Structures are given as structure tokens and as C-alpha cells.
């Protein structure tokens, strides 16, 4: 048994390394973005990438999809996109025999790696067409429920909502994303490297390094990662402290947050932390893992108050304050360690 899980951990480490290497052949820099996207893939959650246009979000997603031997589909969200454009619809077809019947024309949601590009450019109605698929890995069309083929992994990109022509994602929609990954601007060196790679001759597509079974295996291993009760309790305390109504919540939460993260947030925190442990080759979760994933997991789940928005307090600042304020260990143990 011991050797089995050890092997699985080893395989996970190797798969992670292979995937990172393959992505690295196309994507310059963005190590954290790639890392966090892999957490989502391994944990079985969906990832929302936010960044200004032209930072390589779509390319990153396409590259990841290309590295995985999975069916890829892309939805370009536009203001006039209809829900049926996402989910698909029944259309009338004529058989060779001349008989006519309705046949399901599956939409792009039925891919295994779905790129929802510029998701906040569509109306909330169209955005919400993703809800069922993302949460339940199934889609109901004309009264018929259609299961998604596993692994099902949605990678959405969005532009900052301050930009013209965007619709903020509803809270329910945001909550379905395991992680929200911020895509930063490349550094000077990275930019130079990007220029070198993209302005020359066409490059071959990245190799497919992970097949469907391997992804499913990674996801299963992620669920098997152990987590001690104090670590789970820490995750709970962090999430509870994000609620301004909770006694002992930090001042910044009381001032800047209207709604904190909920149970789904705490689940996501633990799952993401397990993914981190797995990809680092550990069979258990540490406090550090929870702290590491806290920002991408919680940043889109905290709804700022008017005061918080007016003061320009970001949710990342609030999460940082939470990590600072909520002790991971009991106080007596913490004091003994510090001595």
C-alpha cells in the first residue's frame, strides 16, 4: 500500500514536471499562472484567469489543452452570444430514408478542456449557461440531461471589469471556479523572449504529455492526500474569519468586506491545498499549502463592501490580512515554537 501511494506521488510529480516543461516550450514566464492552473486541473476544479488583453491567457489555455490528450473546445464570449450557442441545441435533421427527427447538436461546452474566452463579455444570462456544467459536470438540453465526459475542465479568461464592454460575473458563477488566477504582465526579459519566439517562423504545437487516464489518476490521488484535523480547522478558521459577521474577524474584513467566503470556499481551499501537496510529492497537507492557495481560492469569493471599494482595498489585501491575523496553531504551541 505504502509503495502504491508513493508511486502515485512520484507519478504525479513527474506528470507535473512534464506538463510544466511542455507548456514552458510555448509560454514564456508566467510560472505562477501555470502552476496555479495545474492545481485546478489536478484538484478537479475550474480556473478563471484574469488579466489585461494580450497577456497570453488564451495562448496559455490553448497550450495546456494542447499538452493534454483531451478534447478541446473554445467559446468566444461576445455580448450577443446566446446560451444555446454554449450548450448546443436540438435541430431537425432528415435521415437518408427521408424521415425527419430532432438530433442534438452539442455545443462547445461538451469538450473536455473548455476555453471560455473573455467570459465577462457575454451577458450574465449566457454566462449562467455554464453553471450546471461546471458544478455538476452535466448539461440539460430540452429536458434531457447530458453528462460531460471526464475529465471536464473549464478554463475561463476575463478582462478586468473596469474595461469597457464587460459584464461582471455573477457571484454564483464566480463561486463555481476553484481558483481565480491573476495573469501579470511579463517582465522585460520575458517580453523579449516572447518577441523572439512569436515573430519568427511557425513553431510546432506542444507535445501531448498527459492522457485522459493520467489526468483522472492525478485527480484521484489528489483526493487521497491526507489532511490533519488542525490543518482543516485552520482552513475553516480562515474562511470563517473572512465573514465580517464573525466574532474576531480582522478589522479590515469588517470594514471592506460585505460577504465572506462560504462552505464551497473552504472545500476549495482544502482541495487546492491537497493539489499543491500532491504536485510537490507530499502525502499530506500543511498549513503552508493552505496559505499558498488562499489568495487564488478566496479572492473571487470575497464580495467587497462599498467602503472597501471606495478605499481601493483589494480582496488580495484582505486575504493577506486574514493569513496574518488567523493563527495556524494554538497560541500556547505557537509561543513555545517561537521561544
Amino acid at each position, binding site marked *: 500500500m505504502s509503495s502504491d501511494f508513493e508511486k502515485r*506521488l512520484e507519478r504525479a510529480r513527474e506528470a507535473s514536471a512534464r506538463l510544466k516543461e511542455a507548456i514552458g516550450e510555448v509560454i514564456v514566464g508566467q510560472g505562477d499562472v501555470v502552476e496555479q492552473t495545474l492545481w485546478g486541473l489536478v484538484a478537479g476544479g475550474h480556473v478563471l484567469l484574469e488579466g489585461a488583453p494580450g497577456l497570453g491567457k488564451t495562448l496559455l489555455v490553448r497550450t495546456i489543452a494542447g499538452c493534454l490528450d483531451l478534447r478541446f473546445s473554445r467559446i468566444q464570449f461576445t455580448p450577443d452570444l446566446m446560451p444555446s450557442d454554449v450548450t448546443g441545441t436540438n435541430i431537425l435533421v432528415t435521415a437518408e430514408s427521408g424521415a425527419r427527427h430532432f438530433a442534438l447538436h452539442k455545443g462547445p461546452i461538451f469538450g473536455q478542456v473548455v476555453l471560455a474566452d473573455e467570459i465577462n463579455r457575454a451577458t450574465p444570462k449566457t454566462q449562467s449557461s455554464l453553471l450546471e456544467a461546471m458544478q455538476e459536470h452535466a448539461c440539460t438540453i430540452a429536458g434531457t440531461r447530458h453528462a460531460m465526459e471526464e475529465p471536464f475542465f473549464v478554463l475561463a479568461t476575463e478582462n478586468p471589469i473596469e474595461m469597457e464592454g464587460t459584464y461582471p460575473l455573477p457571484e454564483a458563477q464566480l463561486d463555481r471556479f476553484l481558483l481565480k488566477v491573476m495573469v501579470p504582465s511579463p517582465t522585460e526579459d520575458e517580453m523579449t523572449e516572447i518577441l523572439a519566439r512569436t515573430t519568427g517562423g511557425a513553431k510546432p504545437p506542444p507535445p501531448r504529455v498527459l492522457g485522459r487516464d493520467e489526468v483522472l489518476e492525478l485527480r484521484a490521488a489528489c483526493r487521497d492526500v491526507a489532511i490533519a*484535523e488542525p*490543518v482543516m480547522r485552520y482552513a475553516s478558521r480562515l474562511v470563517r474569519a473572512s465573514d465580517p459577521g464573525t466574532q474576531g474577524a480582522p478589522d479590515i474584513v469588517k470594514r471592506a468586506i460585505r460577504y465572506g467566503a462560504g462552505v464551497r470556499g473552504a472545500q476549495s481551499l482544502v482541495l487546492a491545498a491537497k493539489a499543491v501537496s500532491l504536485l510537490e510529492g507530499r*502525502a*499530506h497537507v*500543511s498549513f503552508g*499549502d493552505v496559505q499558498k492557495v488562499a489568495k487564488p481560492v478566496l479572492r473571487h469569493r470575497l464580495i467587497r463592501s462599498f467602503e472597501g471599494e471606495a478605499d481601493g482595498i483589494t480582496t488580495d489585501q484582505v486575504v493577506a490580512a486574514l493569513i496574518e491575523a488567523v493563527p495556524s496553531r494554538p497560541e500556547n504551541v505557537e509561543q513555545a515554537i517561537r521561544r
Partner: protein
Amino acid sequence: MVKKIAPPEDRRFRDTFTRWAGRVRRRLALERVLTGAAVGLAVGAAASAAAWQTRHGALRPWMAAGGALGAVVGAGVARRRRWKDGEVALYLDGRLAAEETISTAIELGGRDDKDDPARAVVITRAVDVLEKASPKDARPSFLRPWHAAIPVAAAAIGYLSWIPLPPAPVTQGKPPGADTVQIADLKGLEKIIELEGATARDPEQKKRLEKLAADAKKLRDKLKQGAEKREVQADIAKLKDAITAERLSLGDGEQRQGLESALGKLAENPDMKDAAKALGDRDLVQFDEEMEKLANKLEKADRERAKKTLEEAAEAAKKQNAPDVAKALEEQKKRLEEQAKKSEKLRELAKAIGEGLSEDAKEALKDLEGGGAGGEEQQKLAEKLEEALGKLTPEERKKLAENMKKQASQAEGEAMGEGPGKQQMKELAEQLDTPEGQKRLEEELRKMAEEPPAGSEEGELQKRLEDAQRGAGEAEGGLGGAPMPMPMAGQGSGGKPGNGSKPGGGKDGKGGKDGSDPFAGHSEGGGPGDHKGQTGVVDGDGVKSRADARVNKGKPMPGIVMGRTAGRAGDTANIQGTGALGQAAAGELGAIERSDVPEEYREQVGRYFQPK
């Protein structure tokens, strides 16, 4: 939790962890024990300092036991707050940077689910972590900054036990008499208040007596409300001073010269030396008694001479502008006449009865003729005669009346003063002649026996002042302090302590002879009455003095030296003072105001030294 771990790797982990946990727990317990000892010793040092301060020397070293007690308490606390496996595991994870491997292993080891895929991996890694770690890396420090109190407090206790105790603090209580007294009705004050109704010599004295009574009433009211003891004591002392001054007011001040002239005249008559002494002492009750004694004397010539002396003394006092003294002497002369009449009547009656008298009556007659103690002998004889008359049969009474008529007729033509007065004899004979007359006579005798002869006005006033003085003493005693002994004429016959207002009789050879000695002393209310309270007239030529001092010839020293009013400022043994202190010692003027005498006593001290 650890018990459920199955062998073999689980047991290895359990053993390793138990070893580590023991180390951690021991050191944590040690820290608590030391903390307890530090607190105990610190408290012990404080208690030791308190024991030193309060001079409980024997307790000081025992305070070190506080350290042991604190250590025991610390051990108890350590036991109660002993870390659980989970806490130890978290501590070890933190110190060994094990990323919660040990905590997870502890938890997985305690679970029943032995098929947990991660279990073996986590436990194996936890064992690796623990086995590779050095005990130094995870040793909790048991020394805390406050543990420095242990040697410091122990040293302090040692030092405090070694050094000598501080000197006993000087207790500074309330100044004496500063406590408040509240008495509804202080006994004794009523006697001073009664002075209101006393007969005064003149309107000024009346006013003074009324003021005394009013002051006493005011003091009584003040006491009802409650006042400082010393304030009340000062008020009573003022009252006493005023009463004393009043007692000695006859012939005082401007009338002093007149009094002394009168005294000189009285002293010329040997029979009146005692009376002169009593007047000199301003003891007018005694003066009354001396006059009564003279009135009882057998010889009419003596009485006549005494009357003459009183006349001359009164005249001398008048000349020296001492009308009060003169008035008192004239009143004494009248009293002498009246008393003499009464005595004569009693004597004649007694002689007429003759053998019909009882032995007691004969003794009383003898005492009366000898001068006796004054009114008492007269009362006694009157009582005995009344008894004797009551026993007479009508025949005996008739016979007695006839005898007396005969004696009265025989007495005709005899010179006055040699035998019984004719008029007295006649009156008695007429009274005895009828049963009604006899009854009237008996009534008269009973009255004489029951009521002592009335004193002079001054004597009566003096009695009331003495009562008031005693009342002031009682009031002083009622405040809780011993009353100041007041100089009063006392009685000290036969060497026994005097007890009142009677003069020392000087019997048993200790004083004068049967009271006739002019130097017989008087008691100050507590001592024998036979000391020589007053010097006699000193013949300057017979006194030898090394200092060759000139003696103030012919002037007696004051009989009562109260230190307040008897003498005048400047009086010495051989110099008569002028009473003018300001002239005698001008530099001393305002000395009391400049002195450190407390404000509340200044007035009293001032009055004490006030020149008359």
C-alpha cells in the same frame, strides 16, 4: 490515540513520538514549576519584607517556603495543562519544519481506517523526520526572563532574614484630650448653676455669680452636643478659677489694706486669733464658727471684749476703705450678741435644773462653757434640756420656776457679767410657771436642737461657693480624668485625714491645744489637719539670717498659698508686692503671647499670671 497504531512502522512511530513527547512535556512542566517557584518566592520576599517592616522577625525565613509552595502549584498546573499528543505534534512540526507531517501521522495513526492510502507514507515520513532530528532542535526552552526572580527573591529573603529589625515605630496618636466627649448631664455642674440663687454681697458679685451659672449651663449644653475633652476641661478649669477667685474676693484688691488692718485688730485679742486666721484665710465658714465659740464662752467680759475687738476691726476696715470687710465684721458682732443670748439662756436653764440633768446634758453644758466647737454644743445642750424639761412633773416644774424667780431677785443689784442675767432668769421663770409657757420653751429648745445657728451672709455664700467648687471637681472627674485637688478648709482632728470644711482641731497633742493654738493647720482636703499652715507674726529682731535680709515685720504670710490670688505680684518673704507685674518685669510683658503655649490654653495661662 497513539495506542491504536498497528505494528510495525506504526509502533516505531509511536515509540519515537512518545520519546520526543516526553522530552517536550518534561521541559514544559519544568518551566511551569520554575514559574511557580518564582512567583512563590517573589510573594515570599514581599511577605518577608512586610514581616520585617512589621517587626515579625521570626516569620521572615519561613517566607522562603513560598518558593516550594509555588513550585508545587506550578507542578499541579503543569499536570492539568499537560499537552495532548496533537499539541506536541504541532509543536514538533513547527520546530522541525516538518510541514505538519507528525501531526498528520498522529491523526492517521489514531484512525481505524487502516486502508487510508496516504497513511503509511505519512507515518514513514514522520518517523524519518523524528529520527533524523536532533533533540536540541525541538527542545522547548524552559527558562523565562521572570525565572531570574528565583535567585533574586531568595537572596532578598535571606537578606531580610539576616538584617536586624527596624526600630519600633513611634506611635503618634491623638494629642491628649483631643477626643470628643458627649455627656447628657455632667454631674457637678448643677452645683455651679445653683450659684444663680445665692445671696451676693453686692450687685457686681451677683452679676459674677449669674455669669458663672450661665457659663456652667452653656458648658452643659455644649457637652450634650459633644465637644473636645480638652476644651471642656479648659472650660471647667475656668469655672473653678472663677469660683476660687469669688471665694477669696472678700477684702481683695483695693480692700486688701482694710482687711489687713482689720486682721491686725483682731489679732490683738488673744481670744480672736483663730477668728483672725480664718478671716485671713478668707475662710468665712470657719470665721462664723469661731464667733459661735466665743458666743458660748462662759465669761461675759470675754464676749464683751470680743465685741469691742470686732467693732474696732470694723472701724479699721472702714477707715482703710474696705466696706465689705467692715460689713462682715459688724454682722459677726450682731451674731455674737444673739448667740451669746441663746447660750446664756441655755446655761441658766441647765443650772436651774441642776441635778435633774442627765450625764450627757452635764457633759454638753461643760463643752458649751469651754467654748466647744461652736453651734454643735449649743444644739446638743438644747436637745438634752428639752428632754429634761419633758421629764419634769408639774410640781418639779413649779419648784423650778420658783427657784428661778428667787435667783432672779437675788441677782438684782449684782454687777452685770458676774452671774446670770436677771431678765433671762425672769423670762425663764415666767415660761416655766405655766404649762403653755413650758411648751413654748420646749418648742424653742427643740428648734435650737434641730437647726444649727444661722451663719453669716458671707459664710453662707462661701458654703455655696465651696459646694460649687466641689461640683466643678466632680465634673472634672466625670470627664474621665482625676479631678484637680482644690484647696479647701479641711478637718483633721486627731491626726486623721481631714475630710471637709472643718478646721483641724489639733487634738491628741498633734495640733494646737484643744483648738486654741492659733497655728493649728487646716487640711487641704486630704492630709492631716495639724500642720502649721500659717506663720505667726515674726519678730524681726529675733531672726538671724546669713543673708542679712530684712524681714517684713509684723505681716503674716497668706495662710492659703494657692498660687493664684492670695499673694500679690512681687510678694516675697520680706517684701510686700505691689501687684504691678508690668513694673516689676517690664520685659515679661506679652511673654505669654510670644511663648509656645497652645492657643487654646493662652487665655487660661494669661489669667493665671494676671496681676491683681
